[in-house]
Structures are given as structure tokens and as C-alpha cells.
């Protein structure tokens, strides 16, 4: 029978199908960070359970770590916030006690969990990958079945190397045609979330396909898969092709020699069969996607940069209308306002969505030779890992940012969720390359606008949103 890619990944990890509809699914790779793991390790200790398999886990601190050079200089001991320091220390202690490999705070390989997974080759095509973080779907970009789990499941995976799962339904999101110049993978996923809504993918695993996805780099595919959860789907995946195989070759944990040859043959089968049936197919025309900006407090509240803040009066569904009205009040915006008229206070370029080398390059290209607008009090660039940082510095991108008046930071989650010192002030508007514009997400009372790295960079220079394609035009 013809299978989807998700069907194949599911079937190849099915340990046991139980009569009650639940199934045991084997987990190949487990990634651990400091926020969602302490209670899981504590649970193991209380029940006197040993991890099932140690050598499949990899850990790194990311959510709490400071990003200023000064605060990072003395490692964990230098973390000023004592509660954050305790959480990072607890991860170090747990990894030490249980014997789990950790990229600790100032290891050059440390970084955001979803950046280091593919970067190190720990997450490979065809694997099942889980992590106590909803953006784990990022790894789907290399053809892995990857999704976020809660802390009880972190404990469950540590103890059994399995998850109790129910099979999800299959959705294909097909992005046809070609993207215009200056339109990026971030704009693609924001447009998708805007189209199907923040609950549109609930209960589904989404496969992203179509010519636009085929033409996209692996890092771009990561940006798309990363935000599958913003469309409600736990998992987003992209079929393996030559781009995937070229990407994974030569990484730290990628197989070599005969194993590599064997793996490549296996991976080449990781795509949906031509006759595979999806429960739902959604199609978008890539050429009609414009650079996107979120205006509200849900990732589905997006419009093209040329657009205006929508009017709730035009919406009939009372629950939706009320949500839009509340978002307008929280964001301090009025219906009909041009997106380019929104005044910005800060710019954040980073997060598991957009902190890889291609994102750094895209942002640097826009700000090169320009100066940050005086009205922007802080524009920060936070690379996703120590290796991304080193690569960017080798290319001189750090100097481009610094010369333009942007801050160049140490790797971590940073202002995406503001668990460290990087946060918005009450009422501040931020052009952010992160993934969530929820109330208070980037700081109490903070107002987030989700955009691509190039759009955030352009906003840092202009002081307001501007169609980055105008910048691209200038530069070329």
C-alpha cells in the first residue's frame, strides 16, 4: 500500500500496537535542556529507575543562559540570576550523575537544542527525535519524525526509550512555484500559519512539499518545520532529497564509510509514495507570498508588509472577533493602520527559528554599510550556537552587525522567550525573528511582531517595517 513519509517513519519505529489504539513508538534521539528536564531526572531518582540507553541522549543549556559576553565569561558561576543559575547547574549535575553527553554553557558546540541537533549530525533522516520543547519539529527538515514532549514524557523516554503515542493524521502542505526575491522560508511558514490558522494542524503531522520546498535549503526547511507547532501540528517533515544528504554529510555524528553508503540508500526511500493518500492537502502559490509581518498576539495574525492591521468588525465569528479586539488593545494598534506605520523599539534576530548561518548572512546583507535607526533602543543578533557564531565571525558578519550599531551576542534562546535577561519592556514593540507573538512572550507587556531575518534587519535600519525587497533592490 502506498505510504506517506509520516506513515513510513511511524511504521519503522512501531514497537507495539496495542488493542486500545495506543502504540509504543521507539525514540532514536532524545535532546535535553535545562527547563523541562529537572523534574524528569528527579522522577527517575525517586522511582530508582536507570535510563534505558544513555548514548542516545544529548543535552545543552539554552533557555536560561545569558547572552552578553561579560556575563558568559565565567560560565555557569557567572549567571547573575540565581534561579536560572540553579537550573543550569541542575542540568550539569544530572548529566554528570547519569552519564549523559552535554555541551555545557561555554562549550563551542553549545547552542539552542534545535540548532545543535542537526548541526552536530545527532539528528539524521529517518530518525525519531524528541525533546521537551515544542519546536523540536525543526528536525523534520532532514526527514526525521520529530516533535515536542512534556516533562513526564521526557522521563518516559529516559526510562523506556519509547513513547506511548497515537498515530496522527496526514496533512500535505504544498507550496507551488517559486518565491520572489527577498521572500524567505520564514515568510512561507508565516503565510501557511495565516492560511490554516493556529489550530489548523491539530491532530496532524504536516509534510511540507511542492517546488518551493524542493528548492529551499535545509536551514530554510528548518525554519518552516520549526513553526509547524504554530499551525497546531506537533510534527512537520520534509522529504529527503539530495539537498538533505549533502547537508548531513560530514557532521560529527553522521555515519562514515560503509555505514554512510548504507544510510544513503535507506534515506533515499524517505519520501511519500506517489499514490499516498493524505487526509488533507493545502496548496499555496509561492510566487504570491509577500514578506509577512504579524500584527497580533497569535502567529495566525499575519499580513503582508504592504498590508494594514485588519478590522475585527469585518469578522462574523464572535470568538475570533473578540480575540482580534483583545489583540489590538494589547498591541496598542488600531484597525486599518498601515504595517509600515508601526513604531518599533527593539529588534531581535535569533531563536531556534532563525539563528543559523544563513539567517545571519541574510540579516548582515541588509544592514551592511547602514546604521541602526536612533529610535531603535536595542537591536541584537544572537547566533543559535557556538559553531554558528564562529562561522559568522570567520565571515566577518559580527563586524558588519557591530558597525551598523547592532549588538552581537553569545548563543542561546535569548529574547525569544525572555527567560534570561534579554526582554522587552512593558509596551515596547519588537521586530523579532522568533516564533511566538503571545502576550508577554518576550517580556511582560512586550509587543512582538514576527518577521524574517532580512525584514528584522531592514526594520532595525529604518526604525519601522519596510518591504525588504526595497533594500534588496538597493544592494544589488
Amino acid at each position, binding site marked *: 500500500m502506498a505510504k506517506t513519509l509520516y506513515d513510513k517513519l511511524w511504521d*519503522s519505529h512501531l*514497537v507495539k500496537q496495542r488493542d*486500545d*489504539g*495506543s502504540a*509504543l513508538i*521507539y525514540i*532514536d534521539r532524545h535532546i535535553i535542556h535545562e*527547563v*523541562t528536564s529537572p*523534574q524528569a531526572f*528527579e522522577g527517575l531518582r525517586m*522511582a530508582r529507575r536507570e535510563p*534505558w540507553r544513555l*548514548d*542516545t*541522549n544529548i543535552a545543552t543549556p539554552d533557555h536560561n543562559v545569558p547572552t552578553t559576553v561579560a556575563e558568559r565569561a565565567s560560565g555557569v558561576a557567572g549567571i547573575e*540570576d540565581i*534561579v*536560572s543559575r*540553579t*537550573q543550569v547547574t541542575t542540568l550539569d549535575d544530572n548529566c554528570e550523575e547519569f552519564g549523559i553527553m552535554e555541551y555545557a554553557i561555554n562549550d563551542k558546540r553549545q547552542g539552542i537544542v534545535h540548532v545543535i541537533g542537526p548541526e552536530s549530525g545527532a539528528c539524521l533522516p*529517518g530518525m525519531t527525535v524528541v525533546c*521537551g520543547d*515544542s519546536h523540536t519539529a525543526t528536525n523534520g527538515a532532514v526527514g526525521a519524525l520529530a516533535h*515536542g514532549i512534556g*516533562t*513526564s*514524557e521526557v522521563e*518516559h523516554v529516559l*526510562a*523506556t*526509550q*519509547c513513547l*506511548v503515542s497515537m498515530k496522527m493524521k496526514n496533512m500535505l502542505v504544498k507550496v507551488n512555484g517559486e518565491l520572489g526575491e527577498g521572500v524567505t522560508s520564514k515568510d512561507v511558514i508565516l503565510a501557511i500559519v495565516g492560511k490554516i490558522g*493556529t*489550530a489548523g494542524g*491539530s*491532530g496532524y503531522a504536516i509534510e511540507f512539499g511542492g517546488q518551493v520546498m524542493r528548492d529551499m535549503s535545509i536551514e530554510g526547511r528548518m525554519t518552516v518545520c520549526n513553526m509547524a*507547532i504554530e499551525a*497546531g501540528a506537533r510534527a512537520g517533515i520534509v522529504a529527503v532529497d539530495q539537498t538533505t544528504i549533502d547537508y548531513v554529510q560530514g557532521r*560529527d*555524528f553522521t*555515519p562514515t564509510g560503509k555505514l*554512510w553508503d*548504507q*544510510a544513503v540508500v*535507506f534515506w533515499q526511500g524517505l519520501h511519500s509514495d506517489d499514490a499516498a493518500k493524505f487526509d488533507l492537502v493545502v496548496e499555496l502559490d509561492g510566487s504570491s507570498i509577500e514578506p509577512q509581518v504579524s500584527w497580533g498576539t*497569535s502567529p495566525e495574525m499575519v499580513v503582508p508588509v504592504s498590508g494594514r492591521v485588519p478590522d475585527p468588525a469585518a469578522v462574523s465569528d464572535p*470568538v475570533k472577533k473578540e*480575540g482580534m479586539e483583545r489583540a489590538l488593545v494589547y498591541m496598542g494598534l488600531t484597525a486599518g493602520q498601515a504595517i509600515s506605520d508601526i513604531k518599533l523599539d527593539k529588534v531581535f534576530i535569533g531563536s531556534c527559528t532563525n539563528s543559523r548561518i544563513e539567517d545571519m548572512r541574510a540579516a548582515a546583507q541588509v544592514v551592511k554599510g547602514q546604521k541602526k535607526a536612533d529610535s531603535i533602543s536595542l537591536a541584537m543578533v544572537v547566533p543559535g550556537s557556538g559553531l554558528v557564531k564562529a562561522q559568522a565571525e570567520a565571515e566577518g558578519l559580527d563586524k558588519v552587525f557591530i558597525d551598523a550599531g547592532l549588538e552581537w551576542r553569545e548563543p542561546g534562546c535569548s529574547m525569544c*522567550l525572555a*527567560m534570561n535577561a534579554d526582554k522587552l519592556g*512593558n509596551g515596547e514593540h519588537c521586530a523579532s525573528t522568533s516564533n*511566538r507573538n*503571545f*502576550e*508577554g*512572550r518576550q517580556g*511582560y507587556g512586550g509587543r512582538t511582531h514576527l518577521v524574517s531575518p532580512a525584514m528584522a534587519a531592514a526594520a532595525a535600519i529604518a526604525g519601522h517595517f519596510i518591504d525588504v525587497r526595497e533594500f534588496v533592490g538597493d544592494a544589488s
Partner: protein
Amino acid sequence: MKSFTTHSGIAAPMDRANVDTDLIIPKQFLKSIKRTGFGKNLFDAMRYLDEGQPDQSCDGRPLNKDFPLNMKRYHGASVLLTRGNFGCGSSREHAPWALDDYGFRCVIAPSFADIFYNNCFKNGLLPIVLDSTKVDQLFKEMYAAPGYELAIDLNSSSVTTPSGDTFNFEVDEFRRHCLLEGLDDIDLTLQHSNDIRDFELRHAAAAPWVFDAIQGN
């Protein structure tokens, strides 16, 4: 795990759609390394008028008097009535921990986000999906009657209103069974240890590179 069989309690509203887990428990409280003590910070940004800090006593913080959980009529509420896609966003299990710690045993909504829904069952918290017209009816009745209580029976998978209307809901058989019995699902999985080992042998034969150890430093 805590079991759930039947429960009757006062219903309180969270009358908006797409309530995300950042709203349920803001990130500054995720720095705790414990599973308990999150109840006082449930819906922190809506419940209080100031910005909450971890390890801070909430006694004396200024309350938002318009927030339902601060209203006398909803004191002691243990059933949360809400709108679609409740629990979207972050996978933080701190969200069900906070609801549980506050005293909620059950959340009723037209739909839930997948990860949150799953996390609830690990903590003895019952998420109930009812279609939106029924949820609308419950909201209307609750607003009209202070002290409005709902009776939930997981054995019969039903919600009963004070006037005797009974609505049935669906729960996966595995989850229902675990919740009714308060079963530890790690123990249940470990009963399949031989199946897991057999699978590992098959898997290693088909894809041996998957078992290359993560090691180094």
C-alpha cells in the same frame, strides 16, 4: 499517578480562544526545578496587576478584580470552562501542573492543542472536548448562576449540568483506563521490555547507524 473517576465542582470561565501555555504559566516561573507550587502563578499576567517574579509571595500583590478567578463567585472552582485550542504553544508541562496545583481537576473546551492535551493525562487532569454549541450553553448557564457546578463522570464519560442535561464526551481508551486506575505509564511500558529489546535488534539490523553512540567531549 493521581486517578480520576468522578468529580463535581464549581465551574469558572476562561472565556477566550487560543489560550497559550505562556498565558497559563509565564516563563519566569519555569525556572523552578520542582513540579509543585505553580498554582499561585496560574494565569499570572491576567490575575495580578503587577509583573510576577519567581520565588515571590503572592500575598499582597495587587489583584485584577475583573479576572474571574479573583471573583468571589468562582472561589474554589475546580472545572475550567474555556474556548477552542486551549493550551497551544509551548510544550511546558508546567501548564497542567499549575492548573492542578491551583485546584482544577478538569478543563472543558471545544478543542485542545495536542501537546497540552497529552500532558494533562500524565497529571490526573481531565481535558474534555465538547462541541462548541454545548460549550456555549455551559458558558451561558454558568454566567447566569453563581455557584454553578458541573458533575463529571469518567466511567460513563459524561458531564452533567445542575438542570440534569448530560453530555457525553470521547476519550481514547488507553488514556481513560490509565486515568481511571491512576496507572503509571512507565510501569506499563516496561511490561513490554522484551518487545522493546526485540525491536532494537530489528531496528539495528535495518538502520545500524542509528545506534552509533553519542559520545565524545
